[in-house]
């Protein structure tokens, strides 16, 4: 295709700590990934795994007690770490990396008309007469499937799905290279969810922005993304091309996640029962010495406590953090049974 490098966003060994009275919270640890041009990169994980902190750190939207460190943080060949806050705000935020925030439902200022807010966002970055900006907004509304005259409505006059689409329209406003979508379909009913996803896919065929899609919904990830990272306890436990990840999952957590989600194809078949992963995510206070998943992992061995498994390359595009990657065939077999996860040990 073009000569431009394939990598759009490169994140290497990113750590985010929150300073609290009880000690540092290690919300994100040693996260490395890259987002390529024209791809959807999915980040999956349950609540509290560090997904939102990760993107807040990328966009410099952390609370004041949050600190970010990284070995490398580059966007399109530019080093984001050495960039001043002002430059970042004026050159990167929204222009290059835009955000469809979590609960986009509440992300519109209730006192301004929806169109006005979008115009404001455009004019904050571009010298553009209002009339022209409004035309642009109408165009954007059309892309996301909203009628142009809805620009003059207030957010409370919108349904949840409409607000979501308005937020997506705003994110598209300046043709950014990368759009971060934080739980774009959470809280919407399935039909609206489906329509939003279809709309995102249509938009993808029209524009060439890459997307980071963050969700706890494995089904959405499977449907939308080209590559996936599975996060747990602030770390990426496994990352691979989507098909690869679902066809040959390696990490016990990924195996568990797969069990916990229904699939139409396996409905009615033996072993189609949903199996949850007992327990809850680990507290992330203080320095960590164990594999974060070990306490919930039915396959944990002695090594898992006291040592954090390093990320191991499994294929060109496949990595996982586990000490038992070599036993994966056996683990996959055992992971299919409910008693493996819910034994009373």
């Amino acid at each position, binding site marked *: 295709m073009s000569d431009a490098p394939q990598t759009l966003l490169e994140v290497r060994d990113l750590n985010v700590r929150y300073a609290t009275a009880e000690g540092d919270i290690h919300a994100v640890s040693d996260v490395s990934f890259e987002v390529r041009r024209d791809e959807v990169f999915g980040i999956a994980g349950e609540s509290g795994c560090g997904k939102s902190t990760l993107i807040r750190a990328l966009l410099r939207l952390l609370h*004041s007690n949050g600190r970010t460190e990284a070995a490398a943080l580059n966007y399109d060949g530019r080093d984001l770490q050495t960039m001043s806050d002002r430059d970042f705000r004026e050159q990167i935020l*929204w222009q290059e990396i835009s*955000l469809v*925030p979590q*609960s*986009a439902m509440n992300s519109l*200022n209730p006192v301004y008309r929806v169109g006005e807010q979008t115009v404001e966002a455009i*004019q904050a970055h571009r010298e553009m007469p209002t009339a022209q900006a409004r035309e642009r907004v109408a165009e954007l509304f059309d892309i996301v499937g909203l009628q142009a005259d809805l620009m003059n409505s207030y957010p409370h006059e919108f349904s949840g799905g409409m607000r979501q689409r308005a*937020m997506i329209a*705003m994110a598209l406003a300046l043709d950014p290279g990368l759009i971060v979508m934080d739980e774009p379909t959470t809280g919407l009913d399935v039909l609206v969810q489906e329509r939003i996803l279809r709309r995102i896919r249509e938009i993808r065929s029209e524009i060439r922005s890459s997307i980071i899609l963050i969700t706890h919904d494995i089904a959405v990830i499977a449907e939308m993304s080209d590559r996936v990272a599975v996060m747990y306890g602030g770390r990426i436990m496994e990352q691979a091309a989507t098909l690869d990840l679902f066809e040959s999952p390696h990490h016990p957590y990924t195996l568990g996640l797969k069990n916990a989600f229904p699939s139409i194809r396996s409905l009615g078949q033996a072993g189609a029962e949903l199996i949850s992963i007992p327990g809850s995510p680990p507290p992330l206070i203080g320095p960590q010495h164990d594999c974060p998943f070990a306490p919930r992992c039915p396959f944990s061995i002695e090594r898992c406590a006291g040592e954090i498994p390093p990320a191991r390359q499994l294929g060109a595009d496949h990595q996982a953090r586990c000490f038992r990657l070599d036993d994966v065939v056996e683990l996959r077999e055992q992971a299919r049974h409910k008693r493996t996860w819910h034994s009373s040990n």
Partner: protein
Amino acid sequence: MSLAIERSWIGAAGGALAEHYRIITANPLGRIGFWIIVAFVLVAIFAPWLAPHPPWEMQYDSEGGFASLRSPSLEFPLGTTHLGYDLFSQLILATRTTVIIGAVSGVISIVIGANIGLISGYYGGKLDELLMRFTDILYGMPFLPFIIVLVALFGRKLEFVILAIVLIIWRTSARVIRAQTIAIKQRQFIIAARARGAGDLRIIYRHILPNVLPLVLLYTSFNIAWSIITEASASFLGFGDGETISWGGMLYELWLSGKTRVAWWWFAAPSLCIIALVTSLVFVSRAYEEVANPRLRKR
């Protein structure tokens, strides 16, 4: 900022005024209060033309007699003082003083209070600590003694009375608006605005301020009401501007004259005016409070 945005601002301001009128008059008491305030403001504006006599001029009745301590009559609608001053004229001219004091100190104090509240609440941390401890110190100041000392030091002038009132009265508005700012800055749309590259000032004045506006207006009317009461109290104690007639000043002169028990008309007019204006402001505040706190609406 481009011209176009300013133009849309003006349009929005026109719409907003109509909206405020609707909010105030939706409540029956708010409507009464609103029109009483309008009446007082009109009297204040046209006071020099409305008042038949200068405030401190001895009056003689049509038969040529010295009009001392006359009860209300056709000739002197609100009666006269022991020195023969026309109370009707005094009252009208005093309205002007009171409205000026209320408007000026009310507006200045809310500008100070709202800004300190917004900045303190938005930035938090050490700045917040500093500003709020300063506010606490002001809470430790007894209101009237502070004004008396300040006026005693600098002189009995209207400017110093206003300054003294403003210096104290912003404290409550700052605290309340700070609290609301803290609540609003955590809302998702503020984070979304920041993700769109909005700077601090834009977020404070473009995104948070419109959301605390009902509270700002509520405290504007509170501050005006308090300024009026405070000025009246200070004047009554003899610490108002000696050159300008005010409602409190009228009561002070009554007190000095020693005719309190005789001249009921002398204290009735200014007292009723203070009560009417302050009550009207409270009614208007209540109308705003229903916007700021919709739970009040159902009662």
